[in-house]
């Protein structure tokens, strides 16, 4: 049985005074194990929606259930726990800590789970192996290529084995070859059961993914719909 890991219903998000709506009543459900592309022009509300899905933000109205929990009714502490154990993030600008080795950057992904530094590094090594960077453990960010940096960032996002991986334009700063490598990695992670939601401007990339959700002006204007992920257990 698969369950909805993301369930947005009639979600709006407005900013400022007078309020301008970045999201204008969005309904979206994503099942466990899906691989979803979110596309849309600049300013259409993609990042806003991803923030809500990642529990970094709360809807102005409507309800957002993430991993079965109602985001609007959860405390900061519980939302933080959700992010620490269940959700991984990948950013366009990588956000690696300069001066710290790849393995330490990845180990940082587990720092808020309270496990020891030694253990964190052990898991970090495994995660770096998973993204094919076991030969770059002690390299600092400035000694890595853009593609390698993004792989380190992905390793950090998945080191805690989250069930939901969110990526905001992960290939935006990469050339097409490294970008393809990163996408391949996201596919592999999805194969092993992680739900992946990725924002992209790359039409070809989006077309290659099983499901596409198109946003325009704060609304979902097209959704290719869920495909059976083949993981009905």
């Amino acid at each position: 049985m698969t369950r909805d890991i993301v369930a947005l219903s009639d979600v709006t998000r407005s900013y400022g005074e007078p309020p301008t709506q970045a999201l204008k009543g969005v309904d979206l459900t994503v099942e466990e194990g899906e691989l979803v592309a979110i596309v849309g022009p600049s300013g259409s509300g993609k990042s806003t929606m991803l923030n809500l899905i990642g529990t970094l933000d709360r809807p102005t109205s409507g309800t957002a259930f993430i991993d079965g929990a109602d985001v609007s009714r959860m405390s900061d502490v519980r939302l933080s726990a959700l992010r620490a154990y269940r959700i991984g993030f990948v950013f366009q600008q990588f956000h690696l800590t300069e001066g710290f080795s790849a393995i330490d950057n990845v180990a940082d992904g587990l720092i808020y789970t309270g496990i020891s530094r030694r253990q964190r590094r052990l898991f970090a090594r495994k995660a770096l192996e998973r993204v094919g960077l076991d030969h770059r453990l002690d390299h600092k960010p400035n000694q890595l290529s853009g593609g390698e940096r993004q792989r380190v960032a992905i390793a950090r996002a998945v080191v805690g084995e989250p069930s939901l991986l969110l990526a905001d334009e992960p290939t935006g700063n990469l050339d097409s070859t490294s970008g393809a490598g990163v996408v391949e990695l996201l596919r592999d992670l999805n194969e092993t059961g992680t739900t992946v939601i990725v924002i992209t401007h790359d039409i070809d990339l989006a077309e290659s993914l099983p499901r596409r959700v198109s946003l325009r002006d704060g609304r979902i204007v097209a959704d290719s719909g869920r495909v059976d992920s083949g993981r009905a257990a």
Partner: protein
Amino acid sequence: MSGINNPASRKRSRLRGGDVLYLGTAGLRARPTRAVLSALGIAIGIAAMIAVVGISSSSQAKLNEQLSTLGTNLLSMQAGKTLFGKDAQLPEDSVNKVAALDGVLRVGSTGRVTGISIYRSNLIDTAASGGLGVDVASLGLPAVVGATFDTGTWLNAASSEYPAVVLGSKAAARLGIVSVGSLVWLGGQQFSVVGVLDPVVLAPELDSTALIGETIAAELFGFDHHPTTIYERSADKLVGQVRSLLPRTVNPAAPDEVDVVRPSDALAAKNAADQAFTGLLLALGSVALLVGGIGVANTMVISVLERRREIGLRRALGATRGHIRAQFLTEALLLSALGGVGGAAIGSAATAMFAVVNGWQAVIPLPVLGAGIGATVVIGAIAGMYPAVRASRTPPTSALGS
């Protein structure tokens, strides 16, 4: 589909104490120059306070040591003014009367021969240069006031009948005399220097005078045997009693014309005045510390503004607001503790140097050192509070988008 059924939702974000430190130091290591510069303000404040307290404690320790070797049982008395405002005189037999007093152990005295001065040689124009005053000393004087000799010896029964002179330390320096046997011109006649005193701490008036024997003074200059100053030592316990009896004993007819002082008190009073100055410096030091604290707060506020993305990232990784607050507070604490420890080191070094230069023993009170470093922790906590709260309020979305 409720979160309660999900085992993961019962887990909480956790940040180990060691990791808080790890994150705090990481933040400082990322910008070492800035860390050092902003810790410097605190360091200067702490260094100033520790040096001030250290130096004054060292001088107090020196004084205590001095008093314990010199003793506090010395009293000196001089003639004051008469009822009509004229200079009074101590009676001729005062010294013997003081010596007979209960509890008095030793007595010594000086008397002045007016109009007599001492010069380096007879070639000096006596009208143009004032010369130095000459005092007549009793043989017991050095033992009473605790005088020691730079060179030579004191007058004895034989030499006090001859033109022999002992010079105070300043007098010797003024006359340019360094060795025994030098001849000086005193009251129109050559005198031979038999000794030079070290500075006399309890009777500094002896430093700038020349001392000759009573017999020769009477013979050559008509010394009238009236003492001008009498020094006496008594048993420690009886100092108060002796002090109250002295004026009546010395001059029963006019006890008010006798001024009695306790030189060790004067020494302590001078030190107390220094301590008041210390208080002022201490206040200045605490102002420096305050400014240092503001510097730390300022650095932290800037740091929080610059690191919105890092904060967003950490929130995305699962940090609670409390974890962010702890990280930045720790950073502020480490920053000011860095200043505190550095300042304590600088302050102690300054005290040690000052003490060595003055020939004192360096005294750095450990409680003050502890209080200084403790103060920096408090300052760090206060300075870090606002930036830390501000950091924790940074929206978690700050790492996403651009």
